[in-house]
Each structure stands twice: as C-alpha cells, then as structure tokens.
C-alpha cells in the first residue's frame, strides 16, 4: 500500500440508488470482496478499494452509501450529501463520480443523477442492469440519453462483468463535467425566489452550484432550515423564513413543485431516449410477488420457509455434528492414553477439550443457518420478508426499514444495531436498537439445539413437521414477537413519535450466487471457530480451575465440584434463580455466558465432565449427562422438558452479550441507553421465565 500511495493520483466515488448494483460494480472495478444483498441500505460504512487502469495508474475508489436523493435525512444518506457538497473536511474532493443507474428503473434513478449534474460535479453514468431493462421491454438509446444529460454514459451488466473495462477506460479520462445548463424549470414564482436566494448565498461565499442546491433545499424543506439554522448567516435565515411565508400565502407546496419539475424533465428525456415495447402482461417477478407478498398467503409462505429452514438445520446438520463429536471423543481418549492421570490430563480432556468441543459441535448448524440466510438474501426474498413484516411493524409504530436491522440481528445484534443508521427518525432508530438484540442471534443457536436435542421428544406433527423443528422456530418467533411488542410499548411511552410511511423497492428475483453464499458461510464459520479457539478455550480453562480448586482430598468429583470456587458462586446465586427452576450449575452457566451466550454450552460441557470424571464415560454426550443429573436434595432430575424450555426462553429474552452493550454505548453516545437495555431485557427474561415455569408446573 505504501509503495502504491505515491502513484495514486485520483480520488473516485461511486454513488447510486440502493439496489442499483453499485456494490457489484465496485467489486468488479476493485476486485475487493464485499457483501452484496438485495435489500436497501446494506452499504452503511465507507468502503474503499484501488482501481488499476490499463496505463498502470491507480485511483482510490470510494463506495458511498446508497441513496435515492441528496435531500434524504437518514444518517448514511446525509453523509453522501455532505461529502458531495464538500462539507466533510476529512474527505478529499473527488476527481470523478461514477453514478450507477438501474436501467430498469431509469426515471427514479435519474433523479439523483440530475441532482449531481446540478452540483456541477465531474460525473459519468454507469447504465447498469441493461439486460434486465431489455428483458422488460425497454430499448434505451444510450447516445441520445447521453446527449440529453450532457454526460458520458457506459452501459454495464455488473454481475456479468459486461461494460466494466469500458467504464474503467472512461473513468481514466478527465473532464467529465456536464456541459449543459440546467434544463428543468420551476414555476416562475419559485424560480425567482430560488435565484434570489442563490445569489444571496453566493454573496456569502457559497459556490454557484452549492448555492443553487442549498437554495432549492432550503425552500423545499423546513427540516433542512432547522438543521442548518446555526450554520447560516442571520440574513439568510430571515430571507428563507420570509420566502416560506410568501409561498405559503400563495398556496405553493415547494417540495412537491421541485420534485415534480425534476420528474417532468426526466420524463421528457426518457420519452425521447427510451422506447417501451412492454407487453401489457405482468412480469414473472410481479406474478410471483402477487402470492409472495399477499396479506395472508405471503405471511403463510414466510412462516413455512422459516419452518423448513429450521427443520433442515436440525436434520441435515446431525450427521456432520455427530462426526465432529466423535472426533473430539477420539482425541480425548488418545490424550488419556498418552498422558498419565493427573491435573494436566484433567485440564486438557475435561476442561479445554470438553468446553471447546461442546461449542464446535454446532459449527454445521451455524453454516446451514448462514447458507439459508445467504440464499434468501441473494434470491431477493429478504426484501419480500421485510415487505411482509412492514404490515406488522406499522402496527407497532415502526416501518419496514426497522425490520432490516432486525433481520441482520438474526445473525448478530452488532451489525443489526449498526444497520439502524439507515433510519431517519432518531426515536425510531433508538426503538429499533433497543429491540434488535431480542432477535435470536447465531450465538443462541447452540443453546437451543443442546436443549432441544436432549429434552424435546422427537415426535412429528401430521407426519411431516418434527416437534424439535417447531420448538426451534417457536424460539425465533418468540424473540421476533417480543421485539415487536416491546417496540409498541416504547413507541407509546418513552419514545413517542408518529408512525412513518415506508416506501420499499422490491428488486426482481434472481438466481443466487453460490460463490457469495459460500464466502459468507466461510466468514461466519471461521469467526465461530476463532471464538471457539480463543475466548471459549480461555473461559473453559479458567472454568476448569474454578471447578477443580480448592482441592479437597478423598472427596467424590460431585462433592468436589460443589465445594469448588465455581460451586460456591453457583450456590450463592441459586436462591435468585431457583424460582425459575434453575439449579446452581445452571447459575454458573448464566454467569459465565454474560460474556457471550454460547459460553453457556462450553460451561455445561466443562462442569459435567468435571462432575462425572469418576464415571469414565467420556463418550457420553453432554445432553445425556444433563438428562441423568439428579438433584440430591429433591431426588428429581435437574433438567426436565420444562427446565429446558425455561432456559431457552430466558436466553431468547436476556441481554447476555457484552459486545452488544459496548456497541449500544458507542451508537447512543453514553451509558444511559445500554444500561436501560440491559435492565429491561434481564427483567423481562426473568419475569417471562418465571411465568412459563410456574404455568408449566401447574399444567404438568
């Protein structure tokens, strides 16, 4: 990188509407790997790469967040606006902007292009997905369109790498400013006000292009005026307020007038450059969507897909899980043969190995989960899921945009909370952040699977759906519906605001890219293994020490465990968790998993191996160990079906993740909201588990 920095001479930005294929073009130009999903708002962070041109010169390419216009207010969209207006002093000005346009949604995409042209920025347009446009019956006269807009246009098909070399060659040329003056015109009164305000801004040292953009935005958006009030000279603020009053008296809706004027011009351009040979029938994608997004059938299909996925996770993953488990057992037996009996052998076999193996065994299920998530994203179904959920979301006062962070939270709450940056309304954003960790993340999966496999009977309902599969889906739905319920409560109490309107684009269905799905599985799988090899290994070793010391001679392993440090901690918290049906060993698991949820499984692995080390049953599964554990006081089993359900319910609702708390602190700029989140989730988990346990006892 250091050597190339000397010859990097240009700074290029790539911009476009969400779902215009911007990230795919970025990948093709730079060769960098980046996740490409089908729902809007996936690009939140700054992504940059190096483009190498044929003449050997290099340029930095920055992938800006997807946006529909330069007047949007979501945090990530505001960044695009600030960068393009030159208000981000830490970002160098761009030598060129590549605007990626979805050819099949030309009119809507040209709105952003028209704003960039107005800013007099050097721009070329990548007319992407030209194949999709042609298939839908559009014939685009690229030369005519280029002539009308006054900018260079390169037709591309990003996912097939078509037009990329031409785009590169065009990006390597300089001077790509639109040579045409602004062609869209406002109604005379508004036009005059705009020019007057623009001139006034120029007097206050605004550049001509930025002055025009600000004049238009200030006249059309009272929100923008409010936002810029402290930064604008007093004279300008007064002038704008007077303009607002005058235009109000005339009954003029400035925002609509400006949007309509732009679209009028865009329509006239499309009218001359695009021929629609569209047959009146609906496309296949639209016909499929009639069912997929149907009020009743859509929701039923959504639930069925979820059930099939979790059913598959359960059944297909069993064989590789069994193989991994047997592999670890053999390794344990091998170590006991090599090392003589003693503390070191005990540490390796009953501490480190049993803790790590208890978690690593679930790797196949994690891989299957991410395979299905990738498949749904890549085919375009995730956007439909968000659309279906929008109906439910609007009932609790949120909109479909909030469902996207919640969907991400199925994998991990951290990217989910970061994805809330796409939500404009601050209160809606905070509500979404507060409820996102209730979605069942991948760290909860090992706990669910351990409990379900050991305690839920392997019966099937109607001969097709298995009870374990249904239980797993129920846990995911419990998290989802609790999140919706809590969002409703927050919107009615702490964070009151109006229910926003959500307009969502449904991208056409497409064949999934196996490469990107496998890549995603690889990334998540290696992250999971990395955790198992670092934090889980470490915690297992520490836990072995805490469960083995202080050493008492001539004590049986069970009594030794009770007398150990960890046993004392467990007994200390036991009165608090007894009402939930949990004993002191579960208490140890709850405490150790405050760091990360899956540590609960490794803790159980270590505790039960230490406890039963005298039995010499090293090949017995952890589930079996737990099943056979009898409470010496009551004489009843420690774990029953009810305990297993209570434990899963507790983990669905409790905030047992330090990393999520840390990211909440960063995103909300303080400790107030993460502490509130921790307290409300823990209290909720405790109360609901208490109710489930006592109702369960009553019923049994």
């Amino acid at each position, binding site marked *: 990188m250091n050597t190339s920095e000397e010859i990097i001479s240009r700074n290029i930005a790539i911009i476009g509407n969400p779902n215009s294929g911007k990230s795919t073009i970025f990948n093709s130009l730079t060769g960098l790997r980046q996740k490409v999903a089908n729902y809007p708002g996936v690009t939140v962070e700054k992504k940059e790469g190096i483009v190498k041109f044929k003449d050997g010169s290099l340029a930095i390419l920055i992938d800006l967040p997807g946006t529909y216009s330069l007047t949007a207010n979501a945090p990530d969209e505001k960044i695009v606006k600030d960068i393009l207006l030159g208000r981000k002093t830490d970002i160098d000005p761009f030598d060129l902007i590549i605007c990626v346009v979805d050819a099949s949604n030309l009119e809507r995409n040209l709105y952003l292009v028209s704003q960039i042209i107005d800013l007099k920025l050097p721009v070329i347009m990548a007319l992407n997905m030209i194949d999709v446009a042609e298939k839908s019956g559009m014939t685009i006269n690229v030369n005519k369109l280029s002539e009308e807009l006054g900018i260079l246009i390169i037709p591309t098909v990003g996912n097939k790498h078509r037009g990329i070399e031409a785009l590169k060659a065009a990006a390597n040329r300089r001077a790509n400013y639109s040579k045409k003056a602004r062609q869209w015109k406002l109604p005379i009164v508004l036009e005059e006000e705009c020019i007057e305000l623009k001139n006034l801004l120029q007097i206050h040292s605004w550049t001509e292009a930025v002055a025009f953009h600000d004049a238009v935005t200030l006249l059309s958006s009272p929100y923008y005026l409010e936002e810029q009030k402290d930064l604008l000279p007093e004279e300008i603020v007064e002038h704008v307020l007077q303009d607002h009053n005058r235009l109000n008296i005339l009954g003029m809706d400035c925002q609509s007038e400006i949007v309509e004027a732009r679209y009028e011009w865009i329509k006239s351009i499309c009218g001359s450059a695009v021929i629609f040979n569209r047959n009146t029938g609906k496309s296949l994608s639209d016909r499929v969507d009639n069912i997929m997004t149907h009020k009743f059938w859509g929701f039923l299909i959504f639930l069925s897909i979820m059930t099939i996925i979790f059913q598959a996770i359960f059944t297909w993953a069993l064989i590789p899980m069994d193989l991994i488990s047997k592999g670890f057992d053999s390794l344990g037996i091998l170590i006991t043969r090599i090392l003589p009996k003693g503390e070191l052998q005990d540490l390796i076999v009953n501490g480190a190995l049993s803790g790590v193996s208890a978690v690593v065994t679930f790797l196949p299920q994690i891989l299957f989960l991410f395979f299905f998530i990738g498949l749904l994203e890549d085919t375009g179904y995730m956007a439909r899921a968000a659309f279906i959920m929008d109906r439910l979301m609007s009932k609790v006062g949120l909109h479909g945009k909030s469902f996207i962070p919640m969907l991400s939270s199925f994998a991990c709450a951290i990217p989910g909370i970061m994805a809330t940056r796409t939500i404009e309304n601050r209160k809606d954003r*905070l509500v979404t952040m507060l409820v996102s960790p209730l979605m069942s993340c991948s760290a909860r999966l090992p706990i669910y699977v351990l409990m379900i496999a050991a305690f839920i009977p392997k019966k099937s309902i109607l001969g097709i759906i298995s009870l374990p599969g249904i239980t797993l889906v129920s846990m995911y739905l419990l998290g989802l519906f609790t999140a919706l319920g809590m969002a409703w409560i927050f919107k009615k109490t702490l964070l009151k605001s109006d229910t926003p309107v959500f307009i969502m684009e449904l991208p056409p269905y497409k064949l999934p890219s196996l490469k990107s799905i496998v890549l995603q599985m690889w990334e998540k799988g290696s992250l999971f293994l990395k955790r198992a090899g670092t934090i889980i290994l470490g915690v297992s070793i520490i836990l072995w020490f805490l469960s083995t010391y202080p050493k008492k001679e001539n004590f049986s392993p069970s009594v030794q465990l009770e007398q150990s440090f960890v046993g004392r901690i467990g007994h200390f918290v036991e009165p608090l968790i007894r009402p939930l049906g949990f004993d002191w060993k579960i208490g140890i698991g709850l405490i150790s998993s405050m760091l990360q949820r899956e540590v609960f499984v490794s803790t159980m692995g270590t505790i039960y191996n230490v406890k039963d080390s005298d039995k010499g049953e090293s090949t017995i599964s952890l589930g079996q160990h737990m099943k056979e554990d009898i409470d010496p006081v009551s004489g009843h089993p420690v774990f029953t079906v009810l305990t297993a359900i209570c434990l899963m319910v507790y983990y669905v609702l409790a905030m047992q993740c330090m990393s999520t708390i840390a990211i909440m602190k960063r995103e909300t*700029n303080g400790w107030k909201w993460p502490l509130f989140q921790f307290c409300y989730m823990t209290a909720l988990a405790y109360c609901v588990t208490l109710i489930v346990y006592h109702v369960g006892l009553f019923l049994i």
Partner: protein
Amino acid sequence: MNWQELISLSIVGMTLILIIKSEIRKYRLRKTNPCGGDCNCTALKIDRLNPDKM
C-alpha cells in the same frame, strides 16, 4: 505440587493474562475506531445519535 499440577496452573495463569490483555485491547479499539467496533476497520465517522438531545 507435582509436575502436572504445576503446568496446569501455569496454563491457567497465562490464559487469565491473555484474556485480560485481549479485553483491554478490544476496549481500546472500540474507543479509537470510528465505527465503534473492535474490528480495526476504517469506517467513516458517522454522526452519532445522542438521545439526550431528543
């Protein structure tokens, strides 16, 4: 104390030190990284939400 116990306790001690060191490192990264994570990324500074201003 036999040799096995000595090695085991040394491993436990080293593990404890490594865990504490890694948590301190993560804490520092979270403080310095604009994205708020501990991933070493170079994300853009995004205007943070300050709920107290609401």
